[in-house]
């Protein structure tokens, strides 16, 4: 029993690390633009499909596939920003969100047009046995995901707190009007943030498909849903919150799957989100309420 609990916790943290990465990318975009980008997941899926296509045609190695995934996701992300978000910078948030839904469909169509089967094999990250930690086991893929999540969080922190670009990003998150008045070029920083967020999502997407060993067009919806859910659990708009929210979501899923069965897995996460949104505890609204005052 205790061993199952520990094993579930370990699996949950590994799963949560991938959710955390998705949520961090989502949060960057949401924080800077105050817009929900529904095409975030589909852009990642587009990157994974670019890699699958490269694999099928050139049998490229893992490193090349990783680079192609990230590059494809960044390309799609920048495309979404130019088409959906740049024109609505001062306009309606709903218009931008609906436009991003339209591009979701477009990216999915493009992917299925190029590779029409429902499922494609993706070269596995690692073929050997999982690591044994006493009675527990940890997949090498999970270890890679944890390492990537840690490294990307540290890199992102360095960018945000140690560079001029990071200063601009934080200024825009605090107050877009004041940031403009300080001479920060909002359109350019927004575009770069989109590219950065898509690159982070691309790394997460690559590790996810490589550990599953397969890719489907559903990856887009899956990544958007998990990222959005983890972002909201973490309090909507705080980067450390996104990491915590992602890990919490992974743990909730792993444990509820064990205790209540795979059907109940998603149900528990949604119920928890519903309860949180209904109660709206202070830590969940603090960040957004200070912003609307300025």
């Amino acid at each position, binding site marked *: 029993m205790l061993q199952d609990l520990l094993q579930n916790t370990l699996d949950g943290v590994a799963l949560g690390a991938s959710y955390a990465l998705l949520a961090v990318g989502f949060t960057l975009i949401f924080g800077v633009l105050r817009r929900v980008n529904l095409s975030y997941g589909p852009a990642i899926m587009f990157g994974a499909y670019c890699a699958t296509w490269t694999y099928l045609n050139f049998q490229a190695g893992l490193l090349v596939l990783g680079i192609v995934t990230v590059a494809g996701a960044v390309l799609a992300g920048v495309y979404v920003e130019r088409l959906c978000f740049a024109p609505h910078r001062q306009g309606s948030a709903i218009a931008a969100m609906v436009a991003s839904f339209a591009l979701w469909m477009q990216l999915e169509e493009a992917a299925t047009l190029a590779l029409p089967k429902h499922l494609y094999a993706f070269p596995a990250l690692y073929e050997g046995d999982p690591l044994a930690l006493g009675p527990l086991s940890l997949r090498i893929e999970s270890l890679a995901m944890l390492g990537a999540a840690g490294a990307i969080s540290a890199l992102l922190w360095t960018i945000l707190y140690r560079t001029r670009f990071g*200063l601009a990003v*934080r200024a825009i998150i605090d*107050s877009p009007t004041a940031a403009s*008045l*300080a*001479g*920060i070029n909002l359109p350019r920083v927004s575009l770069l943030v989109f590219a950065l967020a898509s690159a982070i999502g691309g790394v997460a997407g690559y590790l996810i498909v490589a550990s599953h060993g397969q890719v489907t067009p559903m990856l887009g919806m899956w990544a958007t849903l998990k990222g959005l859910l983890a972002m909201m659990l973490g309090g909507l708009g705080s980067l450390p919150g996104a990491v915590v929210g992602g890990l919490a979501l992974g743990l909730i899923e792993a444990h509820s799957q064990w205790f209540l069965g795979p059907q109940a897995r998603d149900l528990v996460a949604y119920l928890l989100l519903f309860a949180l949104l209904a109660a709206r505890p202070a830590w969940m609204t603090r960040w957004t309420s200070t912003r609307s005052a300025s």
Partner: protein
Amino acid sequence: MAALLAIKDLVTAYGKIEALKGVTLEVQDESITCLLGPNGAGKTTLMFTTAGILRPRRGSIHFAGKDITARPPHSIVASGIALVPENRLVFPHMSVLENLRAGAYQRSGNAGINADIERLMQRFPRLRERAAQDAGTLSGGEQQMLAVARALMSRPRLLLMDEPSLGLAPLVLEEIFRIIAELRRDGTTIFLVEQNAHMALKVAQHFYLMEQGRVTFSGNPGSLAEDEVISRAYLGTVKQ
């Protein structure tokens, strides 16, 4: 002598409602010009349009002889204009020091930026005491000092100030106006929006009165019309 800032027939609208209905005015180099008027007259709209946050529907804005109409805000900062916005708008979750660095975003050369930070901290000693603190934790007066200092970090030729005295205690208010006079002596041109007409007219060389989106009066402090202007600037406040 050509004016440093020349605004001509400026119209800015929110949807169908015109907040500026053809504003024409000038700000002379190395002077303090004050814009008075009741709430809702369009003063903040004029400031935001000049700084590029709002786009005018018609009319033109010339700065130092160049047409800057409808340029984006970061390009207007680059041309030498900085706005201290109403309600200060500091970056609440960034430290005082980071707020100042953000103000110098377009400048390069760390040595010059650090020297300016040092100079401003001498002028505003409270900011040095609070350098590492989040700006959101400062008092209203301290935030106003920070907003002014942040604007000065871009080394503007023209400083726009939108109601710097709003909500400040009398002592802090006097300090703000002392600083405004000092800045002008150091060669910065100032275009000031104020509700506090008495204080503003003490430092200004020229003033405009704005009512319902139009400039309705202009003159120099000390002229016979001063009392009437003050009462008209306040009447709007009483009405609301």
